[in-house]
């Protein structure tokens, strides 16, 4: 057993999380730790509550019970002001990018900048251009509207917006879902690269076993309303049937042997 990490090293600390939606118990007193600077992958079958977990942490869903600490602060007891201050320290990439459709990509990236900083117009444009190239979009994407972009480009643009305020913690909801294998591989590399150079903590919900292998340090598996955490090697030794099926099925084996 590894020693219990000190609380200061934790980006997210969840204890006893209980979520009940529409009469179904989604999370039954779930505990989870995400350390600073690690990439935590979250997997689980459809309806196992991966997205619900992400939404609970960022405050889009209020859980029935339990405590959620982000950077050592209990989010459930926070007032709006403290929560706003905390929001500056994380960025969220939603499944379809969730870009504001009436804004260009550059304007989308500038939305958080305009709200929280007083940068000059020139610097604002420079930073938008910087983020656009950091996520690997071509320069001319800046002036395009979300409807003019492909699915993969929308995700990159969404990532650029999530990175606008240089957050410490990044939430990714199915970042590679719906991308072709080449784009997905590029996206994996991008996330790993940004995570290392910007020193991010990443909380990533995904189905994609290639992404898990390529980017994550540890993986949380949501099974039976609870959670099992470990590296891929550790999880392979776990005898839970779902985990065995997931990693040892044909797709899992192919991805892990690659």
């Amino acid at each position, binding site marked *: 057993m590894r020693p219990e990490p000190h609380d200061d090293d934790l980006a997210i600390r969840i204890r006893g999380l209980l979520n009940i939606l529409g009469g179904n118990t989604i999370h039954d007193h779930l505990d989870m730790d995400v350390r600073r600077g690690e990439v935590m992958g979250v997997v689980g079958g459809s309806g196992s509550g991966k997205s619900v977990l992400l939404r609970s942490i960022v405050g889009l869903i209020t859980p029935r019970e339990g405590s959620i600490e982000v950077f050592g602060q209990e989010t459930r007891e926070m007032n*709006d*002001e403290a929560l*706003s*201050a905390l929001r*500056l320290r994380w960025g969220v990439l939603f499944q379809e990018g969730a870009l504001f*459709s*009436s804004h260009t990509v*550059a304007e989308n990236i500038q939305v958080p900048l305009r*709200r*929280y*900083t*007083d*940068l*000059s*117009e*020139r*610097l604002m*444009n*420079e*930073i*938008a*251009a*910087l*983020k656009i*190239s*950091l996520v*690997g979009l071509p*320069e001319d994407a*800046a*002036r395009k509207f979300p*409807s003019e972009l492909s699915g993969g480009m929308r995700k990159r643009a969404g990532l650029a917006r999530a*990175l606008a*305020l*240089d957050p410490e913690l990044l939430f990714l909801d199915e970042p590679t879902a719906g991308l072709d294998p080449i784009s997905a591989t590029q996206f994996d590399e991008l996330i790993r*690269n*940004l995570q*290392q*150079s*910007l*020193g991010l903590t990443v909380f990533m919900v995904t189905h994609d076993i290639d992404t898990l292998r390529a980017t994550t340090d540890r993986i949380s598996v949501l099974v039976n309303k609870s959670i099992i955490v470990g590296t891929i090697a550790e999880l392979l030794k776990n005898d839970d049937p779902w985990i065995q099926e997931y990693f040892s099925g044909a797709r899992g084996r192919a991805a892990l042997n690659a």
Partner: protein
Amino acid sequence: MKNYAPKLRVDNPATLQTELRGGQFRLIAGGDWLLAEVSRLDSELNTSDMEHAREAIIDASAITAMDSAGAWLLLRTRRALERGNTRISEFTLPDRYISLMETMQRDHVGEALEPLPPRRSFEDLLERLGRGTMHVAHQAYDLLGFLGQVTIETLEAIFSPRRELPFRAVVHQVEETGLTALPIVGLLAFLLGIVLAYQGADQLERFGAQIYTINFLGIGFLRELGGLVTAIIVAGRSGSAFTAQIGTMRVNEEIDAMQTIGLNVTEVLVLPRILGLMISLPLLTFFADVVGIIGGMVMTYFSLGVTIPQFMRILGGAIDVNTLMVGLVKAPVFAFMIGLVGCFEGLRVERNAASVGKLTTRSVVEAIFLIIACDAAFSILFSILDI
């Protein structure tokens, strides 16, 4: 949720010293070079004099924290110096930020976005006017094409033996657009009858001709208002629903699926809606006429003291079947307009959610415009025919 805009804060304020001595430019950076400090650092960097330097030293080793915005300022300064043919003899960074700087140097092209200049010139106005005109012309042309297509498909469906009218779907649309609209149409017609009777009585009283309120009410409601108001309500209620339903199907690729399976979209989606509406709108109009006159009757009873038998006798003298028919004959035409425009705009929806809302609004506005234009055309026609 309240809207707080907390300021970004840093632990160690960023420091920046620049000096130019003997052709050597020295930049010493320290503290937290984070987004929160970037605005201040940017203006300090802009005022520093680095143009005439032959050699430059950038010493950022005292930086305690740096993010991509801070790194960008250093990188930009370095590039500006290099463009000015200044040799960078030293560029030091804390080790942990070297990979960030490398990533940015590799990826970033370094050209800021130039904001598009606002174009408010006369030519721009002309251009927009031209585009708008062309858009309206195209729209009208396409709508005319759609009208032709629907007409042909309808005739085929009626006369061709190998195709049959989608009877069940039509009945469903009659229920959807007619039956469920009864409460709102009835309520509004009743209120309108009251208002009309009240205003009529009020004005006609000056001539001592209050009793003509009933003539005014009967003719006004049956010939014009009943049909017009019902059509406008239905345009807002069912025309918008047609566009939204068909538009959502377009977004979900349901229409594409229908085409690949070999279903005729016009026959499956458009015809039942238009035909259903053409049946339900005349019925609704008749209902509105009756309820509106009852509303007027209630009002005349209270304001003029006209009893119901008296009211009926006077009304019977003022109107005949033709008055009713003149109003009712317009209803199928209005219904056709509403259905045609509603389905037409629905089929033009693009594959995004915003487009559904935009075209739904447009469909209602166009339908109401066409209803009123048609009504005016009918008035002219009737006056020529002396009806």
